[in-house]
């Protein structure tokens, strides 16, 4: 998914209750599991939410994360989304300082990455980019040449490719 080999993506289907996110986050914190990014959203079933977590760890740590999150009463399913069987997407908004000279260069880079310029002022612009997290990393690398004023990434959202769908306990 990204350049780092230990990055793993877990997709959790959980009861759509208040407090579920706190339980998951508390568990990660208590057991010393790392959270790289976390997104929560509704699903087609109003009773179920999906939490997508990007975490780091070797095989043994990942096994523990899956089992421990699976033990929570409100967890319906935990799926490890593997790189080659899944689709990962992330959205980036980045505000970059741009004067007359740099604006043209930045536009050129955006064109290559198929990023959109969604806001423009005399001194800055905001770029929107959607894609695989490694594509976003690459784009950000390019933007480091300029003065980044603010940025925000949504964190990874993901689904298994093809006909695979999560079993719900």
């Amino acid at each position: 998914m990204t350049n780092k080999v230990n990055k793993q993506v877990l997709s959790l289907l959980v009861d759509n209750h208040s407090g579920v996110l706190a339980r998951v986050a508390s568990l990660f914190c208590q057991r010393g599991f790392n959270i790289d990014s976390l997104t929560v959203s509704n699903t087609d079933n109003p009773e179920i939410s999906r939490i997508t977590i990007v975490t780091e760890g070797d095989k043994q740590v990942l096994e523990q994360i899956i089992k421990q999150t699976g033990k929570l009463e409100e967890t319906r399913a935990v799926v490890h989304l593997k790189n080659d069987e899944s689709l990962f997407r992330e959205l980036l908004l980045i505000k970059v300082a741009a004067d007359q000279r740099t604006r043209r260069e930045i536009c050129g880079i955006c064109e290559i990455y198929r990023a959109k310029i969604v806001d423009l002022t005399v001194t800055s612009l905001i770029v929107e980019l959607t894609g695989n997290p490694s594509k976003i990393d690459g784009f950000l690398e390019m933007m480091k040449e300029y003065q980044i004023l603010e940025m925000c990434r949504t964190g990874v959202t993901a689904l298994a490719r093809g006909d695979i769908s999560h079993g719900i306990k």
Partner: protein
Amino acid sequence: MILNGSQILAEVLVEQGVDTLFGYPGGAILNICDALYDYRDEIKQYITAHEQGASHAADGYARATGKTGVVLATSGPGATNLVTGIATAYMDSVPMVAITGNVGTSLIGRDSFQEVYIAGITMPITKHNFVVRRVEDLADTLRTAFRIANTGRKGPVLVDIPKDVTGAKCEFIPGKKQENTYVTHISDEDVEKVAEVINEAKRPFLYYGGGVGAAKACQDLRELMNKAEIPGAHTLMAAGIVGCDEPLNLGLMGMHGRLSANLAADKADVLIAVGTRFSDRVALNTEKFARDAKIVQIDIDPSEVNKNVTVDYSLVGDVKDILARLLPHIKEAKHTEWIEQINQWRGADKKPIDDPSVLKPHQIMAEISRQAGENAIYVTDVGQHQMWAAQYCRHLHSRSFITSGGLGTMGFGYGAAIGAKIAFPNRPVIHITGDGSFHMNMNECCTAVSYKVPVVTVIMNNSVLGMVRQWQTVFYNRRYSGSEPERVTDYAKVAEGFGAKGFKCVNLEQFQKALELALKEDGPVWIECVIDREEKVLPMIPAGGTVDDAMEE
């Protein structure tokens, strides 16, 4: 029928088979207290000195009976005082339902008087918890709480009920007692594979823990032990699961376990871990624990597999179900050479030396076991006395040794002993404690006096915080920082002040007489036993060590 939330709570408690409740009243649960007044014939309420005592009492009651313990406390400080008790139950997988009141829903989130977010506080120390915001949800939430507490790996569940919900009314539909809904899913191939590994073992060894008792699988474990002649040793949580006199039971293992038991685990070629979790008090060095063995783990909690120690084979499910499936595939066997080797080690175990002119810890334990008899329930606090009780009391039955193993809660014992005695009024209940632990919650004496609960408390008084001091002796060059508080408490006088009886003993004969008298009393008794502060718990394997590092003196 239309009932208010408090009446619904009482109805559900009765429906779930609860006849004993430990707790303490307060503003946010006034409606509940009022409703319980009408149910006083069905549910006997025990009001403790402190909510912590109530939580330990519910825990002790649950450990002694196997039923779910129930504790009730008010909002704010009432709820936070339960925290240590809930965490204690969580670490030792004890089924408990904790009910807390909270401020009314309109006051929640406003830092109201006695408001605390107890659901947030207890999130990491409960199996699950609930805040009930609508009276219509109350009955089913409580039923779910009882189901969760007692299903799968057992543990505490907290239900927080705002005051207005306890007063609001709705239709109540009676329900059924929640049954354990857990189902074991394992394949025949996996069972056969594990049986094959056990059948091929030359030096098999059983390492069993509290999960065997929780699954009521003691008999099945003994069958496995005897059928294939597999020696075994128990964790702190499993004292009494196999009787201490049974020839294949090597006794306690781990940090303060017998050298022979730890040697057997170290030299085994197949180690079968049943209902246990390779804690750092047993698998002190996770890399080297059972280093020559293929490890088989049988446990109900999948997250315990490969958590602390990587295992070769695992069967996840109810221990009783699994052993029942496994046993027919286990061949009768003899391991004569292995048993001979183990018996040699057992012969070499250092025995403590008797001295009746003073009070030696092992002699106190032996005397307690002799006088209290086969039916006794031993309840301990935490520290040196706890280890001596684990090493030297005669453990004969499951659920007869009640101790805070996982959390190591000093101050656990008195409340837990009161809970156990209330559950079994006709069995002798001996609370074995130290002067450090006892000072934490000795106030529960008033509870034992009020309700005439004749718990016998044996205080091993060495005037220091013995276990801390022992570590300082061994690892900190005898720098006794903080471990010698030099208290001058007159226990007999304090006991008397509470309305209990107290004795002080300095030699074995005095202790024998005091215990004889104490066991005949119909109220609580304290027996102070003065012991030497240099007494150590031995053998000892330092944290992170192996049996090679064991100290015997």
